């Protein structure tokens, strides 16, 4: 057994241990903290699997944003934990659930052990056409060129989930400001961070999004960092969540899918098919789409975290 395999076995044991800890700890708050650690350990696993774009996205969205979302929910739902303890299923149900879970895990493990050799792969096909797209990062090429329709549909799905979140507001609060008003001492540490970090964070986010064309990165981690900076400013009370009825907010949210669709339809005239890019302008068109995407991702993820309107905008 080589050194790297031993270290990777240690990493796998860490992920497994943190997962078991997440499931077994009593307090939900502690379970969410364990989940954030799980996400960070998974990021290391992704790096070992040579999937750096996925590692960036997992650290930003899977561990970071999901962790903050669940922490906020756990804090608000603290009063319900006592009732939940009374509802715990009996030994019979737990045994049946364990049997089912073991069965599923065994089936998947068998699938992993009997994967076909040699492995089917699309890597040569992806690399062969990559120069025509103007990208040097194959994953960005897949996201923005080969499977651009998937990415477009994903942006629409995230937007629809935001509309779903908004629709859960009470009728009289529709059009109001999301979330509760956050008060933080304007001379305190959190307000200090919320004033110093966002400029750096916005630059870092744009940098990662721009770099995604040639190196690991892309619009998703970059937009998430910008969303996180906006959330930090909202949580420190430095800025307030905008009312969801504002037109500029809705335009920003729609900008990403709209630009994507416009470029897609223009593909009919310039290259013969929906979302086809003419080779000479491929990189320019992808950059235009990515600008819209970063803006919309930042706004949508930030608003998904802020939640449904809870304060009326009318005085």
């Amino acid at each position, binding site marked *: 057994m080589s050194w790297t395999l031993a270290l990777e076995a240690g990493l796998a044991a860490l992920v497994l241990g943190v997962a078991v800890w*997440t499931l077994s700890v009593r307090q939900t708050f502690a379970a969410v903290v364990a989940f954030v650690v799980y996400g960070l350990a998974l990021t290391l696993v992704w790096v070992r699997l040579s*999937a750096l774009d996925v590692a960036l996205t997992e650290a930003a969205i899977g561990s970071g944003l999901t962790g903050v979302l669940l922490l906020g929910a756990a804090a608000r739902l603290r009063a319900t934990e006592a009732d939940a303890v009374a509802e715990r299923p009996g030994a019979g149900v737990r045994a049946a659930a364990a049997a089912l879970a073991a069965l599923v895990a065994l089936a998947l493990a068998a699938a992993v052990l009997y994967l076909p050799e040699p492995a089917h792969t699309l890597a040569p096909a992806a690399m062969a056409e990559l120069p025509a797209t103007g990208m040097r990062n194959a994953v960005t090429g897949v996201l923005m060129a080969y499977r651009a329709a998937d990415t477009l549909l994903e942006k629409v799905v995230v937007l629809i989930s935001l509309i779903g979140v908004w629709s859960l507001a009470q009728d009289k609060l529709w059009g109001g400001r999301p979330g509760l008003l956050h008060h933080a001492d304007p001379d305190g540490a959190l307000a200090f961070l919320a004033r110093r970090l966002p400029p750096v964070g916005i630059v870092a986010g744009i940098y990662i999004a721009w770099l995604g064309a040639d190196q690991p990165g892309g619009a998703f981690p970059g937009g998430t960092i910008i969303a996180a900076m906006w959330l930090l400013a909202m949580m420190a009370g430095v800025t307030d969540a905008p009312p969801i009825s504002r037109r500029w907010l809705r335009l920003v949210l729609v900008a990403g899918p709209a630009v994507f669709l416009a470029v897609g339809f223009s593909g009919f005239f310039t290259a013969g098919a929906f979302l086809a890019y003419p080779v000479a302008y491929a990189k320019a068109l992808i950059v235009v789409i990515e600008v819209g995407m970063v803006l919309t991702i930042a706004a949508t993820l930030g608003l998904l975290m802020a939640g449904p309107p809870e304060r009326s905008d009318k005085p």
Partner: protein
Amino acid sequence: MTSVTLFGLLGALLVGLGLFGLLVHPHPLRKILSFNLLGGGVFLLFGVVARRGAGAGLGGDPVPQALVITGLVVAFAATALAVVLLLRLFQESGSATLRTDAPAGKDAGGAADH
């Protein structure tokens, strides 16, 4: 046992653990947590398939990796919607339980409010 097979087995185990947690925990927020655990395991399985498809100068097949990135974002959006649903349930009924025979909450009289 290569490192790729090791991580594949890890992914299978995580799916099993997440499924167990989803079935056994009564509190909906813990169910959402377990569901995310399960999702991490599924994405790991994709990552294993991607790593095995290394070639043409790449460390892994880029198509499954792109699918995982899409999946991560959509999983977050779904989790956000689930959490807001749960918070609204708590707001309306005063408890975060999924039992169908739960006692009526404080808003039972003012059902016309929503």
